[in-house]
Every structure is written in structure tokens, then in C-alpha cells.
């Protein structure tokens, strides 16, 4: 777009842009150096404060009790959410009003309620004492929320399968269930796989909410490390780095799957982007595009 809006910059404009680049680069570099100097000045770069992250036992706690639990939590939640999402998504496409409306209500409810509110409710009502515990409270909260988001993704995916497919299947004499299960869903899953993987990134980020109910996971381990060493800044930096690396790997996987299965076509962009922010939001806003 930008190359159509104005003429191609001439030598003088290009020279001006170079000056801007130099000034901006220098300012950014100065800010970076300033940050490092500030940290150095306050002794935050001292080895003692970073030591736990190269000490085997703390590293093990971080990776096994922290990262592994976080990944397990996210994986369990996403698997359960996919099942819930298929059920709700297919339910929303049902021909029967008494199936369609409850599914619609459930999806809208769990998409509009903050995940933390859900987790707090599940934990303090069913989780404490002899209840299901903090781990499953977080997993259930994540499942309900992501299931509702994925239901929308599934519905859009099934609708994105060319209509001729369903028509041909009906013409062959298949029943509604057969058409859905053997024709539409397999093709829809292929279209939706990238969106499902980006939902995994969201779920993984949201496992950090386990911090509030002391569920096992990266953030909880992080808290015990910084209470022991008083290295809040360092721990937060390491935790952020771990989340970023895992999420970037997941995103790379999503891109690869996308290339492999769907080709270069855009994925269900609106849905994936909406879900990225940790929630798709209300139906009207998402649906208003068309």
C-alpha cells in the first residue's frame, strides 16, 4: 500500500530518512545502554541474584515442577477444550432450536466472563479442602473458556468447507450425522488446525493465572524462588523468557502446519487474532465484520 500513496522517494528524501534512522538508532541504543547501566548501578546484574538459574536443583524445580506442570496443564486443558469445542460448535449448527440455543448461551457466557473470575469461582467453591485442588480448578477454567472460543472456531471452520461437499454427500444419501462426521469435520479440522494451535499459545499464557490459587506451574515456582532470594526482577525476566521461547516455538509450529496442510491461504484470521488477546470477546463485535 505505502508504495502507491506517494511517489518513490528521491535522493534527498532518502538522505533525510537515513538521518532519521541514525538518530532513532542512536536513541534506542542510548536507552538500552542506560537500562544496563541502571541495573549495574543498582547491583541487579550481580551473579548472586542470577545464580539460582544456573544451580541444578533450582533449574530442575523451574523446568520440572514449573515448565512441565505448566505444559501439562495447558495440554490437558486444550485437549478437553477441543472436545468441548466440537460438541458446542456442532450444537450451534444443529437444526433443532432446543439444541442450538443452549449451546449458543453456554458459548456466549464463557466467552464473556473473565477467565480469572471463572478460576476463582471453581477453586474457592469446589477446589479447596477435599475438593478437586488448584491444578484441576485451573484446568477446568481453561477448558470452559477455551472450549467456548474453539466452538466458534469450529463453527466457522465447518461453514468454511465448500457447500458442494455437503450437498454431494446428501445427494449420495448420507444422513446428517454421517455428513458431519465423515465429510465436514475432517475437512474443517484441516482448515482450523492453525487456529487451534494459536489457541494453545493463549492457553499456555493463561496457565500463569494459576499463581492466584497456587496451582503448580512456572509462576508459582517463580514466586518461591524470589521469596527465597529476593531477586524479583531476575526471576520475572527468566519466567518471561521461558514463556516467550515456548510460545514462539508453538507459533512456528502453527505456521509450519499452516503451510503443510492449508497452503498459503490466510487462516481463519479474525478468529485467531481475536483469540490472541486472551479472549475473543462478545459475539456482536466478532460477527460484525460481514
Amino acid at each position, binding site marked *: *500500500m*505505502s508504495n*502507491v*500513496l506517494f511517489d518513490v522517494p528521491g535522493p534527498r528524501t532518502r538522505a533525510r*530518512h537515513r538521518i532519521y*534512522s541514525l538518530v*532513532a*538508532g542512536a536513541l*534506542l541504543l542510548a536507552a538500552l545502554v542506560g537500562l544496563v547501566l541502571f*541495573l549495574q548501578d*543498582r547491583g*541487579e546484574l550481580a551473579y548472586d541474584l542470577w545464580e539460582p538459574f544456573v544451580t541444578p536443583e533450582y533449574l530442575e524445580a523451574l523446568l520440572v515442577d514449573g515448565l512441565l506442570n505448566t505444559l501439562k496443564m495447558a495440554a490437558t486443558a486444550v485437549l478437553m477444550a477441543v472436545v468441548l469445542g466440537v460438541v458446542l460448535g456442532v450444537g450451534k449448527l444443529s437444526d433443532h432450536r432446543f439444541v442450538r440455543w443452549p449451546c449458543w448461551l453456554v458459548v456466549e*457466557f464463557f466467552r*464473556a*466472563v*473473565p*477467565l*480469572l*473470575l471463572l478460576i*476463582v*469461582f471453581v477453586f*474457592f*467453591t469446589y477446589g*479447596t479442602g477435599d475438593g478437586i485442588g488448584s491444578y484441576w480448578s485451573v484446568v477446568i477454567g481453561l477448558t470452559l473458556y477455551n472450549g467456548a472460543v474453539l466452538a466458534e472456531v469450529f463453527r466457522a471452520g465447518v461453514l468454511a468447507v465448500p457447500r458442494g461437499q455437503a450437498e454431494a454427500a446428501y445427494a449420495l444419501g448420507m444422513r446428517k450425522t454421517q455428513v458431519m462426521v465423515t465429510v465436514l469435520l475432517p475437512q474443517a479440522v484441516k482448515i482450523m488446525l492453525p487456529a487451534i494451535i494459536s489457541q494453545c499459545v493463549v492457553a499456555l*499464557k493463561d*496457565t*500463569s*493465572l494459576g*499463581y*492466584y490459587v497456587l496451582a503448580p506451574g512456572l*509462576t508459582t515456582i*517463580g514466586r518461591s524462588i*524470589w521469596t527465597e532470594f*529476593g531477586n*524479583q*526482577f531476575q*526471576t*520475572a*525476566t527468566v519466567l*518471561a523468557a521461558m*514463556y*516467550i521461547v515456548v510460545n*514462539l516455538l508453538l*507459533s512456528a509450529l502453527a505456521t509450519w502446519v499452516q503451510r503443510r496442510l492449508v497452503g498459503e491461504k490466510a487462516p481463519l*484470521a479474525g478468529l485467531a*487474532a*481475536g483469540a*490472541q*488477546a*486472551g*479472549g*475473543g*470477546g*462478545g*459475539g*456482536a*463485535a*466478532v460477527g*460484525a*465484520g460481514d
Partner: protein
Amino acid sequence: MDDLTSEFDLVLQAFWLTIQLAALSGVVSVLLGTVLAAMRVGPVAPLRVAAATYVNVVRNTPLLIVFVFVFVAFPNLGLLVGTPFLLKGVLAVSFYTAPFVAEAIRAGINAVPLGQAEAARAIGLTFGQTMGSVILPQAFRAVVPPLASVLIAMTKNTSIAAVFGIVEATARMRYFTNNSPDDTIVFLVFAAGYIIIVELLSVGAWGLERRWRVAR
């Protein structure tokens, strides 16, 4: 349940704080996001790289970690020590939301068909005229739906402030839940509060979208 009815003003106060948090963060993150989007499409390479890095890093960091930085790590470094909690909450939420806003805006500008710009240039409009009367009006329309879903997600995300001692709606629900069967009612009341806020936002976005729709 009786607590809830006798102390309903506490519920309203909590939601008022949620609304304040969401409104302030919304304004700040839209401003910051616009700047980021401009940096990403501008001609200055270092700014482009810096903005892209910021977007990629923050989009892959959980909001809770951003809150840990603002509420736990920075005070430990001697930064933001006396800052009011509401302000710190706004800081964390808008720092996290700005990249999503930037992406929504960028997508909106890219959604204007190329032919529109070409046609505007072909009939001799200047850059200012092309932008002002052809591209931007259409881009605004295209930005409304994605921006609305970003802002809705942001409103829900303000609940994380509860973890760090801001008594907004989610923290207030925690106060009212006490392991009794009534908890479900308490939960439904608070959920309804959030749903009302979210629905108001989406109805508003839908209205704007309709009003600005071009007859095609």
C-alpha cells in the same frame, strides 16, 4: 447471599473500579498502539525493528508476568514505589494491550483495497487528500470490529489486577465467596456484571460499524 444484598454497594464500587481501569487502559493502549502501528509502517528502520520486537515479545508474554514486573519487580528496583495502584494497573494492562491494538490498526489499513489508493492517485489527489478523504475513512471502518474485540479482551483482562491487591470486581467476588452453595449465585451476579460491560462494548462497536458502513 444475604451479604451480597446488604453490601451491594461494595459490588457496585468494585465494578466502578473495573470500569475506571478499563477506560483508562483503553485510552492509553489505543494511543500507544497507534504510535506502534505508525512506527511499524514508517520509513525509519530502527523504529520499525524496535516496534516489531516489542510486539512479538509482549504478545508472547502472559499478562500476569507483566503485572509481576510492574507490581513486584519494579518496586524492588526502586521504581514506581509510591505510584497509586490504579495507575500501576493501567500501566500494566495498556503495556500489554498496545501490541494487539497496533496489529488491529495495521490490519485495518491493509484491508483497504489497493485500487482505492491507485484510483485516488490517478485522478491527481495529493498524499494528504488520498489519506484524508479516501484511505483513512475506509480504514477506520475496517478497524472497528478487530479493535472492539481487542478492547473487550482487555476489559476482561483487567481482572488480573485482583491478584495484585486492586479490589475490582474479581477481587470482590473472592471476598464474597465463602464455600457455601450461595457461591454460584455470587458468581452469576459478578459474571452478569462483566457480561453487561462486554455487551455494551460490542453493541457500541456494532452501532459504529453500521453507521459508518458504505453502501456497496
